[in-house]
């Protein structure tokens, strides 16, 4: 909408126009996901250029990296909402494993049928999330510490209980259970031959849209931004701060459980160490997507763009024929650059004040 009019002698309307234009430009620069989008385009071009297979920039490549991005993105979107709400969840990674194990043990040891077991697994995850949230709200300890404790406790339980019950570090044989096929069709199938896109991608896009609508348009979204931006001010205006935070922790745990369930159904077994280490990948995706570490600012679409950047990097490095060990270095550099860009953007968003 850059209608460059030549300056005329009498131009008060032209001045108004300029004000409006500056406002919409400022609004664009205020978007948290702007930096991530630019970064994603850059990363895509980079890996399209160094690609050795000739497939990265095709639908085959898209099917591959979107699979990787989806398993990160489903949790990263929830982690982003939690970060906008001013909290962290370091137990989100291990929850993927815990919930997979709960599902596996329910069906193989207690002979629960698949669909009720999936429901119970989600209830289990919600309970762990509620506990995280309740502890953070009640103790007023940083969520970093509270969820770090949850992380290690669950990791210990995952290994200890799995070994105790199965004498191995994995639960297998879950594909013999009634309901496995229908559950797999919902959570772990693929579609669109011959590319074989993963159904997880559909879940991921759906969750991203839901989270974006909630954040931008729902009353609860307003509360998320407010409790992360200034919990005291939010409380003073009547926002239920504790309830909002606890619900965010529950949503994060349940998103991790969703990925745990998907992984279990896809691999037909669960490793006790599944998911550990991923908690930081989710946080990186959220931060690359424009979430401020201080809370109160960020976006769900941004987190999904961040997850795409990470997915492209993982697959792109493999397609380039490089050693995949390099992917961590790549993540580190991307994270650092994102934080730099976001700091500049957020300064501009707050107009140089406060």
């Amino acid at each position, binding site marked *: 909408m850059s209608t460059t009019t030549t300056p005329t002698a009498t131009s008060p309307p032209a001045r108004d126009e300029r*004000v409006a234009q500056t*406002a919409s430009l*400022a*609004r664009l620069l*205020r978007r948290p996901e702007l930096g991530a989008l630019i970064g994603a385009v850059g990363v895509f071009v980079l890996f399209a250029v160094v690609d050795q297979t000739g497939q990265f920039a095709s639908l085959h490549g898209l099917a591959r990296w979107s699979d990787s991005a989806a398993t990160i993105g489903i949790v990263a979107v929830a982690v982003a909402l939690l970060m906008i709400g001013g909290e962290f969840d370091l137990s989100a990674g291990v929850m993927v494993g815990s919930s997979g194990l709960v599902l596996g043990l329910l069906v193989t040891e207690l002979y629960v049928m698949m669909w009720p077991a999936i429901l119970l697994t989600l209830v289990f995850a919600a309970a762990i999330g509620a506990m995280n949230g309740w502890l953070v709200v009640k103790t007023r300890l940083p969520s970093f510490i509270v969820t770090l404790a949850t992380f290690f406790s669950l990791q210990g339980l995952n290994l200890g209980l799995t070994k105790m019950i199965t004498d191995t570090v994995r639960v297998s044989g879950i594909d013999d259970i009634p309901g496995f096929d229908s559950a797999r069709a919902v959570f772990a199938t693929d579609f669109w031959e011959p590319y074989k896109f993963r159904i997880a991608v559909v879940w991921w896009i759906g969750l991203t849209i839901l989270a974006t*609508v*909630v954040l931008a*348009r*729902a*009353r*609860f979204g*307003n*509360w998320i*931004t*407010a409790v992360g*931006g*200034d919990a*005291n*001010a*939010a*409380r*003073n*205006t*009547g*926002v239920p701060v504790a309830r909002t935070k606890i619900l965010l922790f529950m949503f994060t745990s349940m998103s991790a459980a969703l990925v745990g369930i998907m992984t279990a159904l896809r691999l037909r077994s669960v490793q006790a160490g599944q998911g550990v280490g991923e908690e930081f990948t989710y946080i990186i995706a959220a931060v690359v997507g424009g979430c401020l570490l201080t809370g*109160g*600012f960020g976006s769900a679409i941004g987190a999904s763009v961040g997850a795409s950047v990470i997915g492209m990097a993982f697959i792109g490095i493999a397609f380039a024929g490089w050693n995949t060990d390099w992917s961590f270095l790549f993540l580190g550099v991307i994270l650092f650059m994102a934080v730099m860009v976001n700091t500049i953007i957020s300064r501009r*968003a*707050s*107009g140089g*004040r*406060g």
Partner: protein
Amino acid sequence: MTTIAVTTKSEPILELEGVGKQFGSVIALRDISLHVRPGTVTCVLGDNGAGKSTLIKTLSGVHQPSGGTYRIEGEEVNLSSPRDALGKGIATVYQDLATVPLMSVWRNFFLGSEPTRGGPLRLIDVRRAKEIARKELLAMGIDIRDVEQPVGTLSGGERQAVAIARAVYFGAKVLILDEPTSALGVKQSGVVLKYVVQAKERGVAVIFITHNPHHAYLVGDHFFLLNRGRMIEDWERDEVSLDALVKAMAGGAELESLAHELKSLGGEVAEAAQEEIAEMRETQL
């Protein structure tokens, strides 16, 4: 600016009688009696530590009084929380804890009371919310070009104004302002004082906490003076002059004795200091 205080002696909307507040062995408030009428500005003045914050926290339901009675519209109440007080029409604007800086003006305006269109997600009626926010702010004389801009980009005075406009819109009968001007410059303070008068003219009972007698005198109809937890003065506007108000504040008396002390020291330094004090007193606004 002459405030024509048409003191129609309407019934007080809020009353304290013999209220005290103790924190363990610390007596923060002692035998406080106070009444506030609709459509007036009641100023509570006092030096640091006088008990102003404790008083408003008691009024707004944060603290429960240790003794005495608290009446709202003639009825004795026991407020359990700020939310409880809000439900009874008592809104408090805390100095730095009133708005969320990174959120837009309209979102801050409706925070906690968003108008929704129903549905499972309880979506906000954004168009209506923006329209109302813009209209209400304009009605208070606050012209914000873009209600989409973050509150953090507004000046301190404008931020206070948004909080005041919000409280008025949501039907506050009593509006408590905790030192709204203490962190602001002269011009910004003027802006906030203007909104205090606007709120009053809309029939709200405003309780204005300050340690600045000049600010108080510009807008106040009734003045209470707190000192060491006690209410030491209770003046209607026509019973007091600005000079008396300034003197009554501990600061006024202390400045004077300081000036005398310096005079006894003699010399140029003292003279310069005296001039400075005189200037300070004149330009304290």
